[in-house]
């Protein structure tokens, strides 16, 4: 038997001077226990327990490692703790935001009529009644939802042709030209325009051209377009760039003109990416508040004309309901409506993000067998 020839060793020479595999778990358990004990002294709360335990865990593991494995390994462990810790810290607000919106938003959303009534005629008296006598919260977001859809739709109708055509210019016609370089640079700059400045621009433009104080859905749509165009240009440009040149050459070699090649070969090949980029751009601007605030004003009733009159939108609805509750003495019902609207808005944005992924998959050129 050969096994008798090799002496059974407890640990290989290669694992000498290392912490046992279970070390992190041991330290974690200790940290949790000690953390709970410390917190029990000053008054227990879950957040503090997590924080104290995390610090204890890092200190314990790094200290133990420094004693057994030496400074280099200890430093590595410390870095790992910090990096993982950073990730957990980043998760906290995400979870907290989603949790807050769900908890506070569900009552509003489940309120009958929330989605299909406007705030027309809803006054502080109603809110006082529901806060003081427990009457159901009236009013809803129908007008805001309509406004958001109209404004965003108009912004999309403006941005997509301009953005797509520009990206076509950059990829198909502009190669190496100074103008193309200038456009690329300024599109990058435009991505960084603060949304409120975009709103002010649209407002200033319409004030100058139409008349002071012009606030309509169309002004808001122009403001959103300023934010949306660079996003569309950048994403479409990336997508057009990855269309293989061979396909263009194949079309040219068949005697097809450049513009037909672009419209019938290049764009269909890239359409999945372009469509998903546009969807993401819509998702980005649909939640913009500041530009709409300064361009479309607020409305409490339904306005189906983007070219005339103030118009509500979901984000500005949330904003005004929180900042200027319908009934200043009883902000509860307004809060409930605001959070309900926030939940609807988040669901919309998530759906758009999801749609972008689906679109990318559905329109992708099929590699049939």
């Amino acid at each position, binding site marked *: 038997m050969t096994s008798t020839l090799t002496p059974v060793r407890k640990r290989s020479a290669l694992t000498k001077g290392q912490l046992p595999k279970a070390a992190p778990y041991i330290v974690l358990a200790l940290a949790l226990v000690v953390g709970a004990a410390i917190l029990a002294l000053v008054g227990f709360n879950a957040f503090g327990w997590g924080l104290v335990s995390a610090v204890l865990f890092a200190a314990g593991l790094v200290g133990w490692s420094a004693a057994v494995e030496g400074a280099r390994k200890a430093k590595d462990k410390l870095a790992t703790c910090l990096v993982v810790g950073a990730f957990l810290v980043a998760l906290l607000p995400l979870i907290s935001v989603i949790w807050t919106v769900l908890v506070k938003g569900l009552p509003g959303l489940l309120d009958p009529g929330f989605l299909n009534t406007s705030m027309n005629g809803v006054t502080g008296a109603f809110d006082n009644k529901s806060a003081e006598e427990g009457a159901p919260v009236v009013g809803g977001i129908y007008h805001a939802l309509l406004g958001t859809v109209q404004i965003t739709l108009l912004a999309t109708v403006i941005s997509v042709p301009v953005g797509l055509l520009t990206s076509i210019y950059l990829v198909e016609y502009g190669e190496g030209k100074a103008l193309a370089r200038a456009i690329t640079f300024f599109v990058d700059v435009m991505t960084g325009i603060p949304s409120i400045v975009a709103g002010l621009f649209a407002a200033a433009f319409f004030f100058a051209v139409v008349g002071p104080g012009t606030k309509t859905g169309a002004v808001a749509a122009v403001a959103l377009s300023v934010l949306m165009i660079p996003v569309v240009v950048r994403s479409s440009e990336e997508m057009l760039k990855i269309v293989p040149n061979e396909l263009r050459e194949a079309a*040219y070699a*068949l005697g*097809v003109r450049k513009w*037909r090649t672009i419209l019938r*070969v290049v764009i269909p*090949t890239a359409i999945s990416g372009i469509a998903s980029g546009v969807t993401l751009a819509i998702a980005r601007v649909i939640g913009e508040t500041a530009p709409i605030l300064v361009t479309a004003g607020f409305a409490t009733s339904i306005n189906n004309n983007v070219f005339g009159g103030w118009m509500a939108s979901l984000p500005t609805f949330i904003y005004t309901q929180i900042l200027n509750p319908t009934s200043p003495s009883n902000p509860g019902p307004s809060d409930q409506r605001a959070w309900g609207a926030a939940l609807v808005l988040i669901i919309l944005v998530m759906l758009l993000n999801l749609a972008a992924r689906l679109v990318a998959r559905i329109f992708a050129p099929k590699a049939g*067998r």
Partner: protein
Amino acid sequence: MSKRIDVKDLNVYYGKFLAVEDVNINIDAKSVTAFIGPSGCGKSTFLRTLNRMHEVIPGARVEGEVLLDGDNLYGPGVDPVTVRSQIGMVFQRPNPFPTMSIRDNVLAGVKLNNKKISKGEADSLVERSLRGANLWNEVKDRLAKPGSGLSGGQQQRLCIARAIAVEPQVILMDEPCSALDPISTLAIEDLINELKDEYTVVIVTHNMQQAARVSDKTAFFNIAGTGKPGKLIEYGDTHTIFSNPTVKATEDYVSGRFG
């Protein structure tokens, strides 16, 4: 349905760089002509000037004349698009349009130009072109499937079918078999032999055996060194070029001493 090509004193430039210098060559109608030579000698560049495909690359330009049955491709008022519809091209890597079915790929030249065509005519054009490319029997049951689902060799024959569907006078092939396996290569070579009954075929190849197998005439291009322009060294019957070349460099190349 096929035309001859005569090239007179052709220089090709990329910007200021002279890529191909002073080519004179006469290509007969209904024949197969092979361009051979080491990498970078300008044979592909020269081939692309024969249907003005080089213009796709910014900065590329030519001096001299290319006559298609006496009409200068570079004459005033000549539209490169018209040139390309008469002189088709097949590329190194098969490039069927990924968004189109097999049938639509064959009809691409017609459809992309918005030409009106009845369904009956389209059907017969598809069948004729695919038969012409020896592909009909393999794909006739799945014309509606995407072209990208075919094998490499089938895709390349689909590209040839697509090229002949626009009924060109001349077909240019830029190393059409270099991305294919030996069996697919054989199928393409057989096809080239059949194509010359109706078309003028010009093929660039790295493979000297292939040139010897398929071509009637062979042109040998060479380059004196990096940064120097490519030149046409010798042009003649394939048999002569391979067995009894007049220039030393040609002999060295075809006997495998360099390149």
